[in-house]
């Protein structure tokens, strides 16, 4: 029996699961938008505009979910500053949750700035201050600089959630080093899926979307590979999947979320919806399968 079975569940459930999903999706969407901002063509501009908007909304929602989930939400800032020693900052590079708090803050800042830039481009800012910030963000140098930093932060936010789970002592999570990679790749695929669904509404051409659908298919193949590595690395722990969560992982994540979209070449919108469903169910299955394992169950009767 793995030593992880003696630990207690942290009750990370219905605020954390949506956060992991939306944070991953927002990080992936921003990364793709930033990549196109740096290396794309003018035809990709609608995708970039959509990506930055999705990321900004996702980052704000992520912060809200994380704060609401705290036992003492008004003390959220204790993760950023030493509450007894202001204004000294609170930062532990070896603690993913501490590193992540700063990464979300920086990602939120970059995504909001980039979103203001593209909203200014669209002429949709009425507030004078926001218009000034958005206008400043239209300078190519600063826009690309923010996109570069934000893109890295975006991928970090998508992946650190899995690393955070691995840096615990809980069953499944701490029994494999692949969860970070799995969540990161899933963040990229769900981010791309969101853009496939929303970018046409902002004027993205079929030709521009072709790159996105092709990337999403590649990301799904990588995701399937990483998921296989994750399961192999679990070894004997895999018996925990002989449960409802195992069925959800197999049918919901692998079947509906990866294999079905890979087959739906001709229907990118339908495939994208399935990718989003699979990405959400991946978080549900991996988090709740571990959360459901209570300490002492293995000990009783010995």
């Amino acid at each position, binding site marked *: *029996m793995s*030593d992880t079975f*003696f*630990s*207690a*569940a*942290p*009750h*990370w459930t219905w605020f954390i699961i949506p956060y992991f999903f939306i944070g991953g999706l927002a990080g992936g969407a921003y*990364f793709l938008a930033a*990549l196109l901002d740096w*290396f*794309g*063509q003018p035809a990709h501009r609608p995708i970039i505009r959509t990506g930055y908007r999705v990321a900004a909304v996702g980052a704000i929602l992520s912060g809200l979910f994380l704060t609401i989930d*705290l*036992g*003492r939400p008004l*003390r959220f800032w*204790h*993760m950023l500053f*030493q*509450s*007894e020693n202001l204004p000294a900052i*609170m930062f*532990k590079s*070896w*603690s993913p*949750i*501490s590193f992540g708090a700063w990464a979300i803050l920086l990602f939120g800042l970059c995504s909001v700035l980039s979103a203001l830039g593209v909203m200014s481009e669209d002429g949709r800012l009425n507030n004078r201050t926001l218009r000034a910030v958005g206008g400043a963000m239209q300078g190519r140098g600063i826009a690309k600089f923010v996109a570069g930093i934000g893109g890295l932060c975006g*991928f970090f936010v998508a*992946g650190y959630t*899995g*690393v955070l*789970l*691995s*840096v*615990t*002592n*809980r069953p499944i*999570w*701490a029994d494999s*080093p*692949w*969860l*970070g*990679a799995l969540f*990161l790749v899933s963040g*990229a695929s769900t981010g791309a899926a969101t853009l496939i669904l929303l970018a046409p509404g902002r004027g993205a051409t079929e030709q521009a979307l*072709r*790159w996105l659908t*092709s*990337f999403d298919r*590649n990301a799904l193949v*990588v995701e399937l590979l*990483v998921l296989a590595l994750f399961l192999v690395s679990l070894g004997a722990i895999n018996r925990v999947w002989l449960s409802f969560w195992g069925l959800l992982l197999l049918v919901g994540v692998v079947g509906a979320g990866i294999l079905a979209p890979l087959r739906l070449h001709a229907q990118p919108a339908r495939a994208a919806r399935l990718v989003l469903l699979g990405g959400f169910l991946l978080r549900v299955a991996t988090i709740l399968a571990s959360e459901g394992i209570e*300490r*002492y169950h293995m*000990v*009783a009767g*010995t």
Partner: protein
Amino acid sequence: MSEAMGFFTDTTICIGCKACEVACKNWNQLPAENGGVKKMSGNSYDNTERLDGIHWRHVKFIEQFDGPYNGRWLMMSDVCKHCVQAGCLEVCPTGAIIRTQFDTVVIQSDVCNGCRACIAACPFGVIDVNPVAGTAQKCTLCYDRLEVGLEPACSKACPTDSIQFGTITELRARAQKRVEQLKAQGETRAQLYGDDPNGPLGGLNSFYLLVDKPEVYGLPAKPQLPSRNLAKSGTFSAASAAVLGLLALVGLRKQRMDERGGSPPPSAN
């Protein structure tokens, strides 16, 4: 820093009276569970079931019976291990968890924001949220009592001295003598858990004398720090990000090449 202090729990003389649980609840003013209404767990004489935010001491009852006349009871008063290398302290993002001058590990309730990272990081399942405070809580090894020279409430209340309090050096010597005594009496299974400073987590400042495998008592055989996965997990994530970035760039280049290859020559316009 004063000398490291802690507990040595000799499970062979625990009688399961739960005086430690009561003394702990009383001194630390921990709330009752279930509104104070008595509830049976169905697991032997255990009615608190676990360590958590409102149970900082927990007496475990393990029945090992092969037929009605052949067997034994194992009883053990469990508590925070005050690990020399503490997983909870390692991950805490607010700095709420500190190491005191007595080498014990304490959660400052006024700093904790209830993120619960420490709960998942503890290899022993010791910590949980106190629903009244909304913060993670556990045994403080009666830090407030230690500061004024008093013994922790649980060891003070223990009627058999199953829970002994003192300096770690002295407790280790005493524990070793007790193991030798038990072995001389024929209890060859007697062993110490967590006494080795070169062992897992640098040793535990609350260590135990057991007469069976640690797993039987609900203790991990080789507890580890959560950070053991950090480097590998981070590297795999970075590698997967690099693969995706490369795939995206190759895709862009391919699309550009296709467009160039497919576009009509300038003269055709």
